[in-house]
């Protein structure tokens, strides 16, 4: 329990740091891009929206930094992230709310599947060190060196096209309304196969390699020899003794690298025009929509923190030592 509380405290601290970073970035960078956005849209934005943008981007210079900081927090706690310029008059929180489920569905699910699959293959490769699986390692290295978005481009060129089963863009058939019904769900699944496969192919090899190396390290431990000496079956020694212990560093590695993975996978959405956060971030960058960009960064960070916390809970369940004290 103490372990979990420590982790929660750390994540709260990190969330605070990320929000503070978000507060300072537009204030440190020279120039006021948001000011020019406001003046360009003069007369179309309500006074309330202007006031909230001024608080978010530090345009009210008559207040000192501390007052600005307090006002910033007050606004965030009300869920007000400003106004999106790309999807004009929609507030940022609404835009993010509509795209978050897509990203969680695509990136979240494929990341977990890739970890599980990669780890399972790594167990095999590590236990049978020197077998043909080792020969595949250079190939997987090559695949993981390819930028995710480029692999997506190639996948579209090869598999999608007129008359193909795989659609090349979008999250669902254009005429459909998002709902849990027999028309929408199959369409959404069909649209997610290619992006998901792209992410799987390029993100899995890292897990294979780290799990293989942990298995190799663990299989020379005394308790493995003892397990063999007891006459346990090969399978049992491999899975219940070696893999179970080799898994622990891999799970904590998974938690730590989530931030990197999520950043890379968001780009796949751009290539496939998938209606998630990554594609939205891309559109926001294109139209210099700073409020939307900052909002997306904040939401991504908080999602990653939540995912980290879940990974910690998994670690807690896997490793009895953390539960002892």
């Amino acid at each position, binding site marked *: 329990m103490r372990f979990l509380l420590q982790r929660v405290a*750390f994540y709260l*601290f*990190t969330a605070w*740091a*990320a929000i503070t*970073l978000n507060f300072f*970035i537009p204030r440190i*960078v020279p*120039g006021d*891009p948001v000011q020019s956005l406001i003046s360009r849209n003069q007369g179309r934005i309500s006074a309330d929206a202007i006031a909230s943008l001024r608080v978010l981007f530090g345009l009210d210079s008559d207040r000192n930094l501390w007052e600005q900081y307090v006002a910033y927090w007050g606004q965030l706690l009300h869920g007000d992230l400003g106004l999106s310029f790309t999807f004009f008059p929609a507030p940022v929180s609404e835009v993010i709310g509509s795209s978050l489920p897509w990203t969680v569905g695509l990136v979240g699910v494929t990341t977990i599947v890739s970890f599980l699959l990669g780890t399972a293959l790594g167990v095999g490769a590590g236990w*049978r*060190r*020197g*077998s043909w699986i*080792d020969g595949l390692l*250079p190939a997987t*290295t*090559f695949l*993981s*060196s*390819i*930028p995710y*978005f*480029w*692999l997506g*481009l*190639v996948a*579209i*060129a090869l598999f999608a096209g007129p008359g193909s089963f795989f659609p*090349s863009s979008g999250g669902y058939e254009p005429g459909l309304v998002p709902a849990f019904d027999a028309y929408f769900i199959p369409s959404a699944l069909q649209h997610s196969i290619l992006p998901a496969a792209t992410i799987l192919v390029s993100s899995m090899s890292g897990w294979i390699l780290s799990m293989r*190396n942990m298995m*190799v*390290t663990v*299989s*020379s431990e*005394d308790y493995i*020899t003892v397990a*063999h000496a007891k006459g346990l079956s*090969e399978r049992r020694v491999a899975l219940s003794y070696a893999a179970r212990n080799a898994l622990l560093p891999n799970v904590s590695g998974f938690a*730590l690298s*989530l*931030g*990197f993975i*999520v*950043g*890379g996978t*968001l*780009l796949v959405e*751009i*290539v496939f025009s998938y209606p998630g956060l990554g594609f939205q*971030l891309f559109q926001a*960058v*294109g139209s210099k929509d*700073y409020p939307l*960009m900052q909002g*997306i*960064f904040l939401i991504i*960070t908080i999602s*990653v923190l939540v995912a*980290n916390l879940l990974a910690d809970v998994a670690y807690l369940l896997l490793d009895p030592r953390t539960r002892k004290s």
Partner: protein
Amino acid sequence: MTISPSSIEQVIPGQGAMAQPSARARRRRFRFVANAKAATGLVVLGVYALLAVIGPWIAPYDPDARSADVLQAPSTRHWFGTTHLGQDIFSQILVGARSVMVVGLIAGVLATVLSILIGVTAGYLGGAADESLSALSNVFLVIPALPLIIIVASLVDQAGDLLVALIIGLTSWAWGARVLRAQTLSLRRRDYVEAARATGERTWRIIGFEILPNLTAIIASGFVGTVIFAVMSEITLAFIGISSVSSWNWGTILFWAQGQQALAQGAWWWFVPAGLAIALLGTALALINFGIDEFVSPRLRTGGRTRIRTADGRTVRMRVGFTPVLAPRAAPVPMQDTREDRTS
């Protein structure tokens, strides 16, 4: 039971020399290069470095120059084909290599220096300094780096190479710092460090001359890892159009290919060479990293003969920790750990 060194030598023929103290310092110095993976990676990296230097000179065309050959497939005149404006893609790739390598190098050096400063200091000093520095690096580790880089770079109008490198370097040191801290923690209580402290060496000297040399492999692998990340990030920034589109790197080529619907027009040559160039560079760097890992921890090595015929004529799969009785020509030394792996 610890692994006997002999079992490793038997598993990997030809590697036995590693364990023997060699009188010739020259041979020892180049041991790292003897690793096939590291050697391959270094050679490929060397070619890239060469291209970064001479690329703009040997490029057959000006990468910006337009011509009448619009959107042509690869031919002898244009090795990698042309763009929608008739620009030569081969020249763009050659010219772009410099920007990619320079950003990777600057960001890698900056992040490595930061990770050494923060990681080693935290690990060596301990106490409150350690607590706060580790918290700092953990925070940077958990915050998604790429979105952060995108936000910062997009606020600056038309960010140039140097600025992009600085932003990447300043945000990607945390992983290295974490690994270095852990290793420093295990080194600082070793006898030779205690001895140095007892003889009254100053703290900076202990860190610089006793601890840092033993961290070389970790620092090198952290550097290579950061360079991979920096190159990917730079290309990504260019691809989504944040950094300056007027200077060439491989991401810029992909940016134009994507913007001009190269896929829909079937112009595969527009984006395939740039992607392969990135992937090959990434693979070379990853191979160097594997080489370093295997150099430090020989157990991780792949390959070599692992199926060996034993004295009684059966084949056995070698595994760390087990030493089968080998074929008749080996001296019949009684070994306690002999065991057959029947499942193999």
